[in-house]
């Protein structure tokens, strides 16, 4: 079926990849690779863009998710909550070849949301009394000590959705949602890899999780990870 591309957002993978350049900050959605775009991750490796700052909830699992890009030495800094499932990431960090900034998972999510919704930061007491508070401003409010956590934004967000219409309204799939809706808001250019692209009007507005206003480029990658359990 030919889908009308009246907003010009539906592009080929190679057209989408033209936006990704050396030195950029890239958000990669997904949790252990679930909810990540296999195709766009592979294309970033193929293009071999360098000096990236990657923001992701974890480094993925070996062979799925951001770990691939990190292992290919394309990343100078990783902002994340967990690298425990990917030994290479830890080795590069310990060898001084990769800077890693750890943020507690809920805090990381809210920092991305803050970046996306135009907030100047968030206050949270998670991390108070731990290494996380180092170098951060503390604010007392109502008798509670909070850390001021800064917002995160990126040049590019790499998203995965079950379904996108031609305007970019997105529907996700079960636990493949993760940071996708938050990162969609927090990047200058958000690129979604949708399993299915449908005409405008084919998604009930009640079912839309990410409004199309937050989505700039829609591709159908079609790539599939090989999971550890398979």
């Amino acid at each position, binding site marked *: 079926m030919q889908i009308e591309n009246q907003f010009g957002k539906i592009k080929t993978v190679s057209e989408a990849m033209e936006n990704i350049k050396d030195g950029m900050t890239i958000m990669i959605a997904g949790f252990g690779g679930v909810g990540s775009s296999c195709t766009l991750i592979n294309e970033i490796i193929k293009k071999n863009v360098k000096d990236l700052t990657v923001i992701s*909830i974890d480094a993925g699992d070996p062979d799925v998710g951001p770990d691939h890009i990190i292992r290919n030495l394309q990343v100078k800094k990783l902002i994340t909550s967990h690298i425990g499932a990917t030994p290479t990431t830890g080795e590069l960090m310990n060898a001084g070849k990769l800077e890693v900034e750890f943020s507690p998972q809920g805090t990381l999510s809210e920092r991305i949301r803050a970046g996306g919704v135009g907030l100047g930061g968030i206050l949270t007491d998670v991390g108070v009394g731990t290494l996380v508070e180092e170098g951060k401003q503390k604010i007392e409010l109502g008798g509670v000590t909070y850390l001021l956590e800064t917002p995160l934004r990126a040049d590019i967000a790499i998203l995965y959705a079950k379904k996108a219409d031609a305007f970019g309204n997105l529907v996700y799939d079960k636990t493949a949602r993760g940071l996708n809706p938050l990162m969609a808001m927090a990047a200058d250019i958000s690129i979604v890899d949708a399993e299915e692209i449908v005409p405008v009007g084919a998604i009930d507005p009640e079912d839309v*999780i990410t409004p199309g206003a937050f989505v700039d480029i829609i591709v159908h990658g079609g790539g599939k990870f090989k999971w550890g359990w398979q």
Partner: protein
Amino acid sequence: MGMAVKEKMAKRAAEEINNGDIVNLGFGIPQKAIQYIPEEMTVFFHAENGVLGAGPSPEKGKEDENLVDAGCVPITAVPGASYFDSANSFAIVRSGKLDITIMGGLEVSEKGDLANWIVPGAIVPGMGGAMDLAKKTKKVIIIMTHTDKKGNPKIKKECSLPLTAPNCVSLIITDLAVIKVEERGLVLKEVFDTTTVEEVKEKTGADLIVEDTVKVISYE
């Protein structure tokens, strides 16, 4: 031979879960607690990757690649389950809606400080959701061995490893004992039938308050 030690700890932890609770289980032994929850109880399991109502693993061949737990292992969803993004997942945690979290520990202090996310210079996995869960869950239950591989106590006056969260642990379940963290200090509540109060005291690196009646746990 009786029940394996890991199973005993998981079974004892499961006894803390009440009907209607919302519970998050860490990897490993905490996840074993699921099998000791009575069938007639309704418990909603929260997985931080974005599901409330995580169910058991599907049959082989029926896995859905987009339905997994926080360890990326395929699961099912129980009736009444819901999916959400990472911000809402931790909104459930930070808002105090999570009744119980059961996780592993490296060290617990006598004030209930928890260290379980980093061994500087050795293991640096990152905290994942552990800091949010430890700090914000109503009841934090730690399952761990009483001593490390060298026999050093893991329950100490002060943690020497970097903290996950200060003053957050409610209950410690070890291979030897069940210890409650209270305002007045660490209270020895129960010991497994494989040990004695004396042995537990000796292997604990902090003062233990021992009441007149310490229950002995015997699982067949």
